[in-house]
C-alpha cells in the first residue's frame, strides 16, 4: 500500500536532531518572563517576539531540507527521550517532522511571529504586556508540541497546553468578569472534548499497546469495525472541542473576550484548527470506519452552516469573524470527513484560512484600536478612508474568504465543495449554500465597517495604526492573496504520503472550470448582491433594529447553544452538585454524627446511674457481686 510507505520514518539527521528547539525556545522564553517577573518588564516582549521568529527560522530550514528530499524520506521521527515507560507501554517524547507537520509548524511560527510583532503595538499600553507575551510564547510552544508530536500522548500534552494558553489569554483581562467566565468556559468545554481524545488514546493503548502514529496507523486495519467507529467518534469528540464544532461550539464566540491578537492567533489561525489536524492525522483510523467519517462530515457541515448563520446576525465584528471561523473550520472538517481525496484540501483550506482569517482578525484589532476598543459594527462605517492600510489588507482577506477567483480561499474552498459534491452530494449542496451565506455576511461586515456612512460615537477619531501593527497586516495580506495560487498545484502531492491521500489529477494554479465551480461562483455573487441590496442601499441603524425574523433572532443568540447547555448540563449539574453537598452534610456525615449522637445519648442515659449517692453505687456493686457469685455458683452447679 502506498498509504503506509510515507509513514516509515527515517532517523533524524543534522538540524532535525534539534527540532525540539522549536518548542524549547518559546517555552524557555515564556518561563523566563514568568519566573523573572517584573525584571523583564522593559524588554520581555522583544525576547518573546524573537522566540517564535527563531522557531520559524528552524522550521523554514527544516522545510527547505524536506523539499529537497525524495518523497519516501520526508518523514523524520526525532525521538528525544522516553517519557513514560510502564508495563508493556513505552511512550517517547518524539517529534515527527513530515510534510503535514512542517506546514503546520510554518503556519504557527510564521503567523505567530507576525502576531507577536503586531502585539508589541497592540498591547503597548497594557500593564500586563509581559505576561501577555509569556502566554503567547507558551501557546506557541504548546501548539508546536501538538503538531510535531509523533504520538498521541505527547500530542495530548500540546493539546491541553494550548487549552491552558487559550484559557490564560482569553481571561487575560481577568478583571472583567466576562473575560474570566469566557476563559473558564473555553477550558471546561475543551476538557469535554479532551475527554474524547484521552479515551481515544486509552483505546489505542489498550488495542495497540502504543500511542505512536506509526503503531496506530499500522494497527488500525486490525481493529474490529465497532472499535474503529468508536475510536473515530472519540477522536471526533476531541476535535469538536478544540475546533469549536457543534455541539461543543459555544466557547468560541465567548472567547472573543480575549485581546484581539489572541483571537487571531489562537481562535482563528492555529489552535482551533487542531481538530482538523487530529482527524487528518488519524486518517488510518477513519479509513476503517465510514460511519465515523460520515459523522465528521456531518458535524463539519452542521457547524459550517451554524457558524455562517451566526455570522449573519452579529453586530460585534469579532463575533462575526468568530462565527466565520467556526464556519470555515466546518469546511475543513467536512473535507476531513469526506476521506483521503479531500484531506489535502482540508489542510490547504486550513492554511489559507490561517492567513486570511488572521489577517482579518488583526485588521479588526486595528479597527478597534482606532475606534477606542469599540467592537460594535453599528458604530463603525466609512472606515476605508481614515484607515487605508487596514482597509486594503482587510479587503484582501474578504476577497479571499468569499472565494473570489485567484484569491487563496477560492482554491481551497472550491476544492472542498467539489470534493463534497462528488462524494456526499447533500453535504456538498449545503456547503455550497454556506458559501453564499459567507459572501453575504462578509459583505455585510465590509459594508458596516468600511463602506456605508460613518456612525462613529462621540469623541472617536479613527486613525491608522502604527507601523508595528500594519506591517504584519500587509505581510499577512500577501499570502491571503497568493497562497492559493502558489500551493494549489503543489500541496496535494506534497501532503499525499503523509495523510494517505491520493495525488489529485488536476493540479495547476489555473483553476479548472467545472460545473460545480461555476455554480459556487454564482452563489457567491448572489450572496454579495443580496447583502448589498439589504445593507448597502440604506443607512445602517446605529442601534440594534427590532426584528421578527426568527433566523436573525436565533443567530443573535448563538443559535441558543448557551441556552441549551444551560438547560441540559448546567442546571442539572448545579442541582446535582447541591444535592451531593446536601447529601454529604446531611446523610453521609449525618449518619456519622447520628452514630455519635446515639452514643452520646446512650451515655447520657447511662450516666444518670451516676447519681452521686455512695449508697447507690454500693447497691450497684452488691448487685454486681450477686451476679458474679451467681455465675460462679451456677457454673459450679452445671
Amino acid at each position, binding site marked *: 500500500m502506498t498509504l503506509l510507505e510515507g509513514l516509515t520514518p527515517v532517523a533524524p539527521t543534522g538540524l532535525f536532531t534539534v527540532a525540539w528547539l522549536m518548542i524549547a525556545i518559546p517555552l524557555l522564553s515564556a518561563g523566563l518572563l514568568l519566573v523573572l517577573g517584573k525584571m523583564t518588564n522593559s524588554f520581555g516582549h522583544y525576547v518573546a517576539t524573537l522566540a517564535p521568529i527563531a522557531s520559524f527560522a528552524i522550521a523554514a530550514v527544516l522545510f527547505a531540507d524536506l523539499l529537497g528530499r525524495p518523497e519516501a524520506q520526508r518523514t523524520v521521527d526525532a525521538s528525544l527521550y522516553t517519557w513514560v515507560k510502564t508495563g508493556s507501554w513505552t511512550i517517547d517524547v518524539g517529534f515527527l517532522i513530515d510534510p503535514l507537520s512542517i506546514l503546520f509548524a510554518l503556519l504557527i511560527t510564521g503567523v505567530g511571529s507576525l502576531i507577536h510583532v503586531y502585539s508589541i503595538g497592540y498591547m503597548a499600553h497594557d500593564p500586563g504586556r509581559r505576561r501577555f507575551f509569556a502566554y503567547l510564547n507558551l501557546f506557541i510552544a504548546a501548539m508546536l508540541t501538538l503538531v510535531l508530536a509523533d504520538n498521541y500522548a505527547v500530542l495530548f500534552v500540546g493539546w491541553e497546553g494550548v487549552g491552558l494558553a487559550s484559557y490564560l489569554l482569553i481571561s487575560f483581562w481577568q478583571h472583567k468578569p466576562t473575560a474570566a467566565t469566557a476563559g473558564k468556559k473555553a477550558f471546561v468545554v475543551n476538557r469535554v472534548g479532551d475527554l474524547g481524545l484521552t479515551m481515544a488514546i486509552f483505546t489505542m493503548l489498550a488495542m495497540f499497546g502504543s500511542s505512536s502514529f506509526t503503531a496506530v496507523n499500522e494497527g488500525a486495519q486490525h481493529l474490529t469495525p465497532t472499535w474503529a467507529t468508536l475510536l473515530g467518534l472519540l477522536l471526533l469528540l476531541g476535535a469538536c472541542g478544540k475546533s469549536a464544532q457543534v455541539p461543543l461550539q459555544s466557547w468560541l464566540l465567548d472567547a472573543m473576550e480575549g485581546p484581539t491578537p489572541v483571537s487571531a492567533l489562537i481562535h482563528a489561525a492555529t489552535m482551533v484548527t487542531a481538530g482538523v489536524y487530529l482527524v487528518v492525522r488519524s486518517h488510518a483510523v477513519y479509513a476503517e470506519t465510514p460511519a465515523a467519517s460520515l459523522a465528521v462530515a456531518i458535524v463539519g457541515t452542521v457547524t459550517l452552516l451554524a457558524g455562517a448563520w451566526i455570522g449573519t446576525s452579529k453586530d460585534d465584528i469579532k463575533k462575526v469573524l468568530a462565527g466565520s471561523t467556526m464556519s470555515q473550520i466546518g469546511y475543513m472538517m467536512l473535507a476531513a470527513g469526506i476521506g483521503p481525496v479531500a484531506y489535502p484540501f482540508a489542510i490547504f483550506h486550513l492554511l489559507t484560512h490561517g492567513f486570511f482569517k488572521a489577517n482579518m482578525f488583526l485588521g479588526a484589532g486595528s479597527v478597534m484600536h482606532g475606534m477606542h476598543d469599540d467592537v460594535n459594527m453599528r458604530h463603525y462605517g466609512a472606515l476605508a478612508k481614515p484607515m487605508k492600510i487596514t482597509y486594503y489588507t482587510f479587503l484582501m482577506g474578504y476577497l479571499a474568504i468569499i472565494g473570489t477567483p485567484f484569491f487563496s480561499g477560492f482554491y481551497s474552498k472550491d476544492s472542498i465543495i467539489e470534493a463534497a459534491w462528488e462524494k456526499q452530494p447533500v453535504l456538498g449542496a449545503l456547503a455550497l449554500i454556506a458559501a453564499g451565506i459567507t459572501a453575504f455576511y462578509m459583505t455585510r461586515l465590509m459594508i458596516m465597517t468600511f463602506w456605508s456612512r460613518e456612525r462613529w460615537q462621540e469623541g472617536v477619531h479613527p486613525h491608522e495604526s502604527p507601523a508595528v501593527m500594519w506591517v504584519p497586516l500587509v505581510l499577512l495580506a500577501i499570502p491571503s492573496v497568493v497562497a492559493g495560487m502558489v500551493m494549489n498545484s503543489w500541496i496535494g502531492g506534497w501532503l499525499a504520503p503523509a495523510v494517505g491521500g491520493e495525488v489529485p489529477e488536476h493540479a495547476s494554479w489555473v483553476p479548472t472550470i467545472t460545473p460545480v465551480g461555476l455554480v459556487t461562483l454564482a452563489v457567491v455573487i448572489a450572496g454579495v448582491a443580496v447583502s448589498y441590496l439589504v445593507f448597502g442601499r440604506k443607512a445602517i441603524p446605529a442601534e440594534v433594529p427590532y426584528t421578527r425574523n426568527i433566523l436573525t433572532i436565533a443567530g443573535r443568540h448563538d443559535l441558543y447553544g448557551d441556552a441549551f447547555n444551560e438547560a441540559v448540563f448546567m442546571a442539572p449539574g448545579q442541582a446535582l452538585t447541591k444535592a451531593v453537598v446536601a447529601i454529604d452534610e446531611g446523610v453521609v456525615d449525618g449518619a456519622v454524627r447520628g452514630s455519635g449522637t446515639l452514643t452520646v445519648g446512650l451515655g447520657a442515659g447511662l450516666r444518670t446511674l*451516676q*447519681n*452521686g*449517692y*455512695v*449508697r447507690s*453505687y*454500693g*447497691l450497684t456493686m*452488691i448487685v454486681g457481686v450477686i451476679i458474679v457469685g451467681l455465675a460462679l455458683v451456677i457454673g459450679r452447679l452445671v
Partner: protein
Amino acid sequence: MNPSYYVILAAILFTIGIVGFLVRKNALVVFMSVELMLNSCNLLFVTFSRVWGNLAGQAMSFFVMVVAAAEVVVGLSIIVMIYRARRSASVDNASLLKF
C-alpha cells in the same frame, strides 16, 4: 457443734451489715455496718480455723482486726473532716461524684 450454724450466723450478720450499709445515710452508722461485715467474716475465719484444725484462720482474723483498726482510724478522721467542712455526716450530702 456443727460449723454450718456459725456459717449461717455469719451470713446473717453479713447481710444485715450490707443492708445497713445500703440504707443508712449517717456516715457513722454506715461505717458501723462495715465493721459488722468485717466481724462476720472474722467469725467465718475462726469457724473454718476450727473446721480444718488450722490456726492460720485465726491469724487471718487477727490481721483483719488490725486492718480494720487502721481503717477505722482513717475513716473516722475523714468523717470528722467532712463534718467540719459540711456540718453534716450524711453520706447523701457528699454526692459530688456524679456526672
